């Protein structure tokens, strides 16, 4: 291999990045960090301890965004995320408490079988998330009702089940070891374990989406459900699998929630679905399927916690954060859309046939969804 070839491919790599949404989002996030680093006095923003705080706080949402990337890439949407997380966290806490000792022992703060309890609790949380996702998937595939409607329905159903199961009272008394030795543990008293876990999941998910048939099929279905069916793909089965995978990730987030908080938060997580979908879309995914990026979503999920942290440190009213994130969402998607237009059409008004909701599909090749998928690094 000649040096010139290597240099060429490096240049090609960077040239490719200029056309990739994640690259621009990355620049934006770095810019945001730099901005707060300068703006916040006494250097309390730009230091490892604070940046890892932000990372720890983003971990749970990162898992949700990974799940949503697959769902959106498949051209579906999942509005039931908060219920999946809450139900999984309830399952985790209930099973963990029940398996750790008798109710008298637990009340006295003793957990004789804490190892078993934690293991079963984690399995229960993951299993509940998986089950929740599979139910979503089966309903979407079998009833042929849009995922928007199905998951709107299961959003309510899941929360109702969680309330009935708990009698409306938060489940506490989770073994403190689970909180101290896992949920809030920091490697070298700096790096949150949950962040490492979430980033490992993101790396795996990126590989699955980009380099496996599973990922290819997911985006193919998102491009054209019909074309995928005609080419012999078992679309129904794949839809169930993708919802199941996303559910498993929401289940993991439910487990993390117990690890961080030490109790369920039945009243929390209400805006989780929207937070995840926002990040996935800012990260370069199309709401109409076929285009999605784990890398983009992973970077974008850090925007809200960075803003919260920076604005709090700068002592600015937290209410402004909503406005800033809303503006970023619209501007990011707008710019992304402009960039994706073919060079020739830039600066010219498009022909009238381009009604707004079709714009994201303009640059796609309608005939070969798989080729397009490869093109988007």
């Amino acid at each position: 291999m000649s040096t010139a070839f290597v240099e060429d491919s490096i240049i090609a790599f960077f040239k490719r990045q200029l056309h990739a949404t994640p690259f621009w989002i990355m620049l934006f996030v770095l810019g945001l960090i730099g901005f707060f680093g300068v703006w916040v006095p006494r250097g309390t923003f730009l230091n490892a301890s604070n940046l890892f705080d932000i990372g720890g706080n983003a971990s749970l949402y990162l898992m949700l965004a990974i799940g949503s990337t697959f769902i959106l890439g498949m051209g579906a949407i999942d509005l039931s995320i908060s219920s999946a997380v809450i139900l999984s966290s309830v399952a985790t806490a209930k099973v963990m408490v029940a398996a750790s000792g008798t109710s008298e022992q637990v009340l006295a703060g003793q957990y004789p079988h804490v190892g078993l309890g934690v293991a079963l609790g984690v399995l229960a949380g993951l299993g509940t998330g998986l089950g929740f996702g599979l139910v979503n998937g089966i309903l979407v595939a079998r009833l042929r009702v849009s995922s928007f409607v199905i998951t709107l329905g299961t959003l309510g159903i899941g929360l109702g089940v969680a309330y009935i199961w708990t009698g409306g009272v938060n489940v506490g008394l989770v073994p403190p070891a689970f909180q101290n030795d896992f949920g809030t543990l920091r490697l070298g008293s700096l790096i949150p374990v949950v962040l490492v876990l979430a980033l490992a999941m993101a790396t795996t998910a990126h590989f699955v989406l980009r380099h496996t048939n599973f990922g290819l099929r997911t985006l193919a279905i998102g491009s054209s459900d019909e074309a995928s069916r005609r080419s012999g793909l078992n679309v129904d089965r794949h839809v169930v699998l993708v919802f199941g995978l996303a559910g498993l990730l929401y289940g993991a987030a439910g487990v993390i929630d117990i690890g961080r908080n030490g109790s369920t938060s039945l009243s929390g997580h209400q805006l989780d679905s929207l937070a995840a979908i926002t990040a996935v879309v800012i990260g370069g995914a199309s709401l109409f399927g076929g285009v999605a990026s784990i890398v983009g979503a992973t970077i974008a999920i850090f925007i809200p916690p960075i803003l919260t942290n920076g604005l709090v440190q700068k002592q600015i009213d937290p209410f402004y954060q909503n406005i800033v994130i809303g503006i970023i969402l619209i501007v990011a998607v707008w710019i992304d859309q402009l960039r994706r237009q073919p060079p020739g059409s830039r600066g010219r008004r498009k022909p009238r046939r381009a009604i707004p909701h079709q714009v994201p599909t303009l640059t796609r090749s309608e005939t070969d969804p798989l080729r397009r998928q490869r093109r988007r690094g």
Partner: protein
Amino acid sequence: MHMRTAKQLRFTIAVAQITDTYFQTMICGARAEAKKLGIKLTSQGSQQYDPSQLIPIVDAIFQTKPDAFVLAPSDARAFVPPVKRFLNAGIPVAITDQPLINDKLYSIRSYESNNYLHGKLAGAAIARLFPDPKKIVALGIDYQAGIVQTNDRIRGWNDAIRAAGGTALKAQFANSDPNKAQQVVEAALRGNPKLNALMFIDGLTGDGGRAAIKVLGLTGKVRVAEFMGASAQQVRALRTGSIDALVGQTPYLMGSGAVKTLYDYVTTKKKPPYRLIKTGALILTKKNFDLPSSKPYILTGFAGCKQG
């Protein structure tokens, strides 16, 4: 005049829900006390009552290393690790509204709003209005499942009604949404003509509930108790007789007390013995509302203190 220290002290207060007049009033109390003592106080809070929203805020506050920290947590357990970090960094913490698990290890002073007892006071006040308390059929409209504070208010209310010999129905939830509250209360009143006493956990719930009572022409026939907060219309409703008993709590005193305690500790370096203070409440009525002695129990929200 207090002594002018070389460096102005910086305190921070963070509350469980900054959109709630209850917590806003707490911040007002803290601000007033800070102003008096020459402390620079900053206030923060999450928009929803949700620990996963408040924890990142508390983490960010920790990085600014204030001289002392006041926290009104949204969960007794979730905030133990974040608060421990303050302690390890030598920053004293006072807890308001609800104590943390093993509070005394982390905080130098805690304040707890005794919601159960205050709910009981409301129930007893309403029961006194009935010549024959056995005829009371009461319903509490709660916020949401899993919120200990409001659930306790309803529990206290139900217990007081039952203690007086009346019947307490299973509570309903309305998420502090006036529209939802109106629907729920209308349905309850239509479905149960004997229902004659209602308790709303806050003013927004009350706004909807009172509207339902009015629509059905039952104003004056159904007795109403409410916790004060989250509504601008409560005071007028109390004066015009659509509310019979308004529970006034004391977040203002929690805020000011926490700041004072922390100031004393920081300036004298003498650690006070840990104390958990259960704050009281007053049943506000048309008669006592304007008395000067009622003033500490009236929630003003940010309208009662300058923002900044």
